[in-house]
């Protein structure tokens, strides 16, 4: 059977927070949402970006952990810190290039998206990608995504300055852009994509 993979397409995101709501229904961290969903720059755009754990092949969070509390499963899922080991030092929170881990001070524990391991390990889709009404978060096979998104292609290499990161989760980028990695630092300087200033220019007479 073709394995199911996680595909992220922020361009589709409508900021509804369905993923945030559903994440807190996940059995491994009920009541706590691990998803990050932010406006890029609300005063000028409604664009939002959802961030799940990208499940890096060499997770920076685990590499900087002084207590060796962050483990990666055999199938590549980076897990929440092990409770007996985690010393709540916040190193992982500071180091993760994607800003994913959350320090839960009430438990003295770093918690993060574990790809709904209770679900995905038994063939179910993660909560967030199940409910997402815009397809910004999608969980399925490579064949399905290629069929559904002919104009996009998945990329899983990210450049943060000198650091190159490859991930289990894929980001959808426009196929005609011809890019093979996402340069995250450059992207951070970009204006929101889509309409923002339109209404300024239409009504210059105001």
């Amino acid at each position, binding site marked *: 059977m073709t394995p199911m993979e996680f595909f992220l397409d922020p361009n589709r995101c*409508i900021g509804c927070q369905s993923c945030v709501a559903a994440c807190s229904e996940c059995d491994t961290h009920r009541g706590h949402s691990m998803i990050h969903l932010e406006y890029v720059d609300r005063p000028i755009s409604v664009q*939002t970006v959802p961030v799940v754990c990208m499940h890096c092949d060499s997770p920076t969070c685990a590499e900087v952990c002084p207590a060796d509390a962050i483990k990666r499963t055999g199938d590549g899922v980076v897990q929440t810190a092990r409770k007996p080991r985690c010393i709540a030092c916040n190193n992982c929170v500071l180091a993760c290039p994607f800003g994913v881990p959350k320090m839960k001070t009430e438990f003295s524990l770093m918690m993060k998206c574990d790809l709904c391991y209770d679900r995905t390990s038994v063939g179910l889709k993660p909560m967030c990608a199940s409910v997402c009404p815009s397809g910004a978060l999608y969980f399925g096979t490579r064949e399905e995504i290629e069929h559904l998104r002919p104009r996009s292609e998945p990329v899983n290499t990210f450049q943060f300055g000198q650091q190159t990161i490859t991930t289990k989760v894929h980001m959808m980028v426009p196929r005609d852009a011809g890019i093979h990695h996402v340069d995250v630092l450059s992207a951070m300087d970009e204006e929101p994509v889509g309409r923002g200033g339109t209404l300024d220019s239409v009504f210059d007479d105001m």
Partner: protein
Amino acid sequence: MATLPKEEDVLADAWGPHLNRMDGSRMDAGVEPDKIVPTHCCFCGQQCGINLKVKDNLVIGFEPRYDFPFNKGMLCPKGVKRYLQGGHEDRLTTALQRDPDSEKGFSPMGYDAAIARVASEIERIQSQYGPNAFGVLSGASLTTEKAYLMGKFARVCLKTKYIDYNGRLCMVSAGAANKKAFGIDRSANPWDDILNAEVVLIAGSNTAECSPITTNYVWQARENGGKLIVVDPRITPIARTADIFLPVKPGRDAALFNGILQLMIENDWIDHDFIAQNTVGFEAVAEHVAQWTPRRTAEVTGVAEKSIRAAAELWGTAKTSFLMHARGIEHHSHGVENCLSTINIVLASGRLGKPFCAYGTVVGQGNGQGGREHGQKCDQLPGWRDISNPAHREYVAGVWGVKPEELPEAGVDCYEMMRKIDAGEIKGLLLICFNPVISLPDNAFVKRALEKLEFFTVIDFFLSETAQYADVVLPGSLHEEDEGVVAQVEGRVIKINKAVDPPGDAKQDWRVIQDIAQALGRPHGFTFDSPRAIFDELRVASKGGVADYSGITYEKIDAQNGVFWPCPSDDHPGTPRLFEPGSWNPIAKGAGPFYFPDGKARFNVAAYRPPAEDVDEAYPIILTTGRVVSQFLSGTQTRRIGPLVDQYPEPRVEIHPKLAQKYGIADGDWTTVESRRGTITLRAQVVTTIRPDTVFIPYHWAGRKSANQLTIAAQDPVSKIPEYKVCAVRMRVAESPSRQVDEAVPLDDSTTRRLDGSSPGRPIP
């Protein structure tokens, strides 16, 4: 004596909204549910499939329902958290009576005593003032069985002509336009027809927030090469990346679409064969729109001429298309014309009745479609029959076992009923599934009217802001406590399944209605033992009508994942796509695909009229209202669900920076917005995503945060839909409220606390 027994603040302290959050078995991942019930969401007209997890008669969570074809497991945040409406501290578990001497303003009463009191007041008022002195207001979030029963209850049991429903404020203008143009009022196509449309045109629909699952269909169409045109005064999430965005000035939609049609005709982007063979009335419309040159259209609509030209070309030259609209063009004193103007560009294109050639209205309420089909509208009988038509009266009277002359005549729309209450013509009122104190425009008038009732009874599961005016409140049922059918946005009839029993004395609404009929000594026709029994009668009552359900059964719905009406016989699979060439319907009888005797669709002249209250020197800004994704309608349910309140705790007034600067308003400033009818003070959200001549306020909140304090009760003359989308306001920076208020809205605190309408410090006295 329908006045508030206590101050609004005291009632809110006692009855909510309080916030429910995950705790107990809902928090415990180790709990095995007793059962998982496949059903649908209780909120909007998309009616997404959802599986509810039940433990010890409590819905403890959900599981995505991947096998339901419309949403395939997808849900918006309201659907995800809807289970928190159950097991709620605000839930009514007994009947209540108004009791100003009690601490909470209401005291519990026995269910039977409450029913007896309601019956005796109905009897008293009707014998003293006549049958029409007692009215009924109902709602389109009820199942179709209940909606049917409400219409029958008013006409047969109460013998009153005064019944109407809250669909009146939802999309009746679209319904009236559909009837005028097509002879039938239903989205013409299944949503799968979006997927390969070359052009998707969305007019006045904040799709991403109000019908979120439709977003995926639209994005899929774009992946497949389709282009997107969005008409809206705000850059909503669906508009952000649109190929063409037409930022129409609120209230000018008919002008815009007339202008587009003018360009289609001028450039010969019209389907002459379709127009000749399938329509009548094109010439008059063509003549009328000739005046809508691009320049004039641009002047009136505030949309750039080049954008209008680009949209007309994209729309005019497409081979396939899907046009959908929602409240943005419907909530107007000329809502019918707005909708007709969009239908005219669809008919002129000839793109209807075929795959990916489509038109649809995006219904708002859970049963916004089914709730308007079977007789709870003031002029309607089941099966979309007309209460003024003698043949229709005779048929339905036969089904109901009464004489046709015993059926009342047509009544009036729900706002006119409020005026009749105010004028003393209607003395008593039974209300269910409706929160007019929040949802009707100019709600100060609505409150004054309700106060004049001699007797007011409400069936509800929470003590809504409207129920707080009642003399007797009867505890009804939540969505998950009953079964029945609803028709969702595509016209697909689906089945709501019961997951839990109502708590305490609470009863399924149809039982409450039948108990009242029994207590009145008028049980004839109100002895159903189940929703299925009601549905079986509805099937007969609708048979032969336009909305023919006679071939639909609960079993067929299960087997097919829903049945699209019309479905006129047992072996009929239902009708996903209307107006297919060669299709049969009971009006045209084979003469053509449209629901008129000649089988042809009607072009209708859609003359532009300005809004009822345009801006002037005293009130120079346009106010438009709408929804946010985390709240639903009047918020009776969603303002009680903690995580949804966290997401958008309080209404804000959206203002463009140019306008904000003019008034010295900065982002986050308390801002007073004032119309001729009322005043509201909210924080400003300064954003470039709205027209600089318009401000926006979402309407889900109560009391001093209610946007409908400001809106105007102007109504469309045909459909009677109110003009929620345009009125004139002025604006000023408000004085700083106390620090207490500033801190009253935490975003991430997980403790239970009351936020809405009743927070410890209120913004402005």
